[in-house]
């Protein structure tokens, strides 16, 4: 199992710059947008569960 994981990762380690760059653009940009989108949904949800009360002023 460890050997197959090692060989699997080795394929990526030796990947060419073109593949690496495109992967980083797609997964990096996509991952950042997706994560922040999920966070924005969660924060909207939290705002609904814990609404602002006037006395907090």
């Amino acid at each position, binding site marked *: 199992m460890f050997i197959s994981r090692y060989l699997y990762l080795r394929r*990526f380690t030796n990947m060419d710059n073109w593949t690496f760059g495109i992967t*980083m653009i797609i997964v*990096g*940009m996509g*991952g950042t947008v997706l*994560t922040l*989108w999920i966070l924005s949904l969660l*924060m909207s949800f939290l*705002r609904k569960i814990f*609404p602002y009360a006037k006395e907090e002023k």
Partner: protein
Amino acid sequence: MLEAILNGLNGLVAGFLYMHWSNPIMIVVGLILLYLGIKKDIEPVLLVPIGFGCILVNIPLAGLMDKDGFLRIIYEAGILTELFPLLIFVGIGAMTDFGPLLENPKIFLLGAAGQFGIFLTLALALALGFTKLQAVSIGIIGACDGPTAIYVTSKYAPELLGAVSVAAYCYMSLVPIIQPPIMRALTTKEEKVINMGTVKKSVSKTTKLLFPLVVTILGGLIAPKGLPLLGTIMLGNFMKECGVVSRLTRASENEIANIVTLLLGISIGATMDGKVFLTSQTLIILILGFVAICLDTACGVMFGKLMKVLTGGKINPLIGAAGISAYPMSARVVQKEGQKYDKKNYLLMHAMGANTGGQVGSVMAAAVMLSILKGMGVI
């Protein structure tokens, strides 16, 4: 007797004799950094120690960066261990109010778009022949976030630390000059005058308190390699919002941040030894850093335009430019730019929301990037 005198005199001029051609140039660079910090007020708390460190390390035979040199000790204790940028992050978290962002969580997405320059510049650096990890460190200049850039570079391409840090801090402070022409070029007059109304200030204390916890847990699970960055900034913010550890909050944003900034600055300056710094590579890094910030701004504004369409014209695309981590400079630039076209248009608080979104976004982008690298077995 005469020989002894000559040897003694030789000791006094050895510093001059051993000077490499690059050392005087770097001393001038150090003086320019000091000038920019003192006279032009460009990030003085960092540029002054960086400039001074740069001068110190370019004086030959002093051995400040040798094995037992005091700068080497500081460098190894705080930069190689990544401790300094993380401690700075606790202070940043304690200083930041995420309220404007929580008023309108959709704006979070602008903080993501403002990081696209990181990935595009990374690809550009790869195309120019940098190694994968060097390209990652150059791309991170686009985070517009000094501590993040230092954290990533010191870990994966320490040989570029001086150039990347100087680029990150200089361009961050040049945001008021870099951003406006791009914002003007990419938006129409109708878009510039969109009034987003006033921010209501209606976020409960519980939501503000839960925000750093949610970001830490969720962000950490998605991108565990970036948890040190996320965790420290959110720890600072949690301490500020919980309100029961005001001594710790004050210490984080004052004493700790100040001491660490001094040590961080001087040890970054110490990496600017002329023999390794004065290369064509440094010049390319400075150019790529500039490109990264231009791309961030352009992508932010374009994403703002997309959000304007999706929300039926409720979002002013100018605030997209504030989706970077240069806080609060970028938000002020948006406010100033918006008021050029409509004096009664107050975009500041909306832009502050995008700007704090950019702070979380830059850290998240770095975290995502590190986790992808780990997933691919590159680190």
